[in-house]
């Protein structure tokens, strides 16, 4: 018996019991479709996270305080070591490290902003003019913090796009006065000098405002530490495009160790690549987890196919005896039943892949309240894997019933009703 004949024969068996075959295939269809959808969702989340990270620019290095030697802080926790200061930033800039394009400090705290009848909760960033280059964006109107603003500790503020929209829904914010209220205790009045271009998505920068770091340092005194310096939560470095980030990172580390006069770094430098790698690990695990859940439904589908094939062998016992009497070998019988299981699984697999892709394509249209729309990315790998898996599902679920069929005693089989 040739493979072609076996497939032909399998098709005839399958279409002779359309409802049963359809329901059996449905198990595989649902299984394969859910594998495609859930794995694609995982990939979609992965891509979203990746995009958000790379949108910041891939050649950024973040220097954060690390409390490895501290007895008080939580290691690696935010502000834990408080070992970074504004003067570190100035010293790093003046050491003119090659490969470094810009360095900016970042101090942020949440505050209430009030303008007329509107108010909003925003993240206030204290930084320097270089920051706008580091986050590779520009202003929509007005200008970003200038060196003059920093030098004069000016009460000037640049609004993120969403903040501007909320505070000034129908007027031009430039030139207006915004009240900045901290814990209902401190109250400052800032002149709006610029509005940032929207970055889109849920980008934090759109919900932030920017003020000169010196203003923060001198006018919002609670940030000052006992030595009179200002602690910086984070220093952001943008390296040149064509340099080895590892090398720049090492140079900064060496310089900062000298500045801090320590042997072991009391800070941590994280590159975008490391962030990406970490996020890929998380999203990869998520994809695997989602895929495994879907795999369970595929397993149930496989059990369904195996079960129906066993029923089919029992029902067709006499037929198997007849086929043996007209010259079918054990191998021919096995081939026939395995081909039948394979055909059901592959047809189910193909349909499942198509349905899965259709669901994925429509998934991004469904919104979930305030959350970002889900996006599913169908990768060729997941399609190929789903197809190969449905092939093996057919092979495995068909193997035992086919073996049972081939080992039937022809005489017993012919005698059965």
């Amino acid at each position: 018996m040739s493979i072609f004949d076996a497939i032909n024969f399998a098709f005839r068996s399958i279409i002779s019991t359309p409802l049963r075959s359809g329901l059996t295939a449905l198990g595989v269809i649902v299984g394969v479709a859910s594998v495609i959808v859930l794995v694609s969702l995982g990939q979609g989340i992965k891509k979203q996270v990746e995009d958000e990270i790379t949108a910041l620019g891939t050649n950024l290095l973040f220097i954060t305080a690390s409390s490895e030697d501290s007895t008080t802080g939580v290691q690696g926790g935010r502000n834990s070591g408080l070992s970074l200061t504004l003067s570190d930033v100035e010293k790093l800039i003046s050491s003119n490290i090659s490969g470094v394009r810009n360095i900016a400090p970042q101090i942020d705290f949440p505050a209430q902003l009030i303008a007329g009848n509107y108010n909003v909760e925003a993240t206030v960033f204290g930084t320097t003019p270089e920051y706008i280059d580091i986050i590779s964006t520009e202003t929509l109107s007005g200008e970003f913090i200038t060196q003059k603003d920093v030098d004069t500790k000016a009460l000037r503020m640049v609004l993120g796009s969403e903040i501007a929209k909320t505070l000034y829904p129908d007027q031009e914010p430039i030139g207006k006065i915004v009240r900045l209220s901290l814990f209902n205790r401190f109250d400052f009045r800032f002149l709006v000098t610029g509005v940032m271009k929207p970055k889109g998505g849920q980008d934090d920068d759109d919900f932030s405002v920017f003020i000169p770091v010196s203003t923060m340092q001198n006018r919002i005194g609670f940030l000052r530490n006992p030595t009179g310096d200002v602690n910086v939560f984070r220093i952001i470095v943008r390296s040149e495009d064509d340099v080895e980030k590892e090398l720049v990172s090492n140079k900064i580390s060496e310089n900062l160790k000298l500045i801090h006069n320590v042997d072991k770094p009391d800070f941590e430098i994280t590159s975008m690549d490391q962030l990406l790698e970490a996020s890929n690990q998380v999203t990869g695990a998520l994809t695997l987890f989602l895929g495994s859940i879907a795999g369970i439904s595929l397993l149930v589908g496989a059990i369904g196919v195996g079960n129906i094939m066993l029923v089919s062998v029992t029902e067709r016992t006499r037929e198997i005896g007849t086929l043996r009497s007209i010259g079918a070998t054990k191998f021919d019988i096995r081939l026939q039943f395995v081909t039948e299981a394979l055909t059901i699984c592959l047809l189910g697999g193909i349909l499942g892949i198509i349905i899965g892709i259709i669901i994925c394509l429509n998934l991004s249209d469904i919104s979930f309240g305030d959350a970002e729309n889900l996006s599913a990315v169908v990768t060729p790998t997941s399609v190929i894997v789903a197809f190969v898996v449905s092939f093996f599902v057919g092979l495995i679920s068909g193997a035992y019933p086919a073996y049972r069929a081939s080992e039937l005693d022809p005489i017993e089989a012919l005698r059965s009703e």
Partner: protein
Amino acid sequence: MIELQKVSKIFDTGFNQVHALSEVNLKLSQGEFVAIKGPSGSGKSTMMNIIGLLDRPTQGKYILANNDVSTMNDKIRSKIRGKVFGFVFQSYNLIPRLSAVRQVEMPLMYRKDKDRRKKSIVALSKIGLGERIFHSPVELSGGEQQRVSIARALVGEPKIILADEPTGALDTKTGEEIIGIFKNLSEEGITVIMITHDNSVAKNATRIIEMKDGMIV
């Protein structure tokens, strides 16, 4: 052509041993039309199954065309079975979902015969069903279904036809037509071995073998 030498078949049921065949000796030559008679349990079917290579003797030798086939492996026996024998059953044993022409093609499918459609139509025409080749079993009468199964037995050009009560489910007139076909086949040189209860059917054969308690009497 067929030679059984002291063939015994013992079924071990666990409680006792049933001697279905006891040292049966039998020689059949080409073109014989043999009727096997006997009460149920006399060993007719067991002997037929051994001759048709569906079963193996417990003891004794089975020589088919000068070869000892009792010890060959299952694959070779399956191939010989398909090539040398044609089976006709009391209840036709057609595959319900296949049209007549596809039923008849099945034995050739296992032999990977490329001309099977043509040969199948020839076999059906020969048996008088040339007009109904695309009908499925449910659309055919009992006599027609038995003709399809005879065509299926004949399509591979067998040397021996094994028929187990081929007229058992048919009315007298249709039964006679089927026996007529067997007579013609044996005249063409095909050995026909037929099990029957019916004396009026058996008398058409050139040789009648009576069996009782696993022995030829």
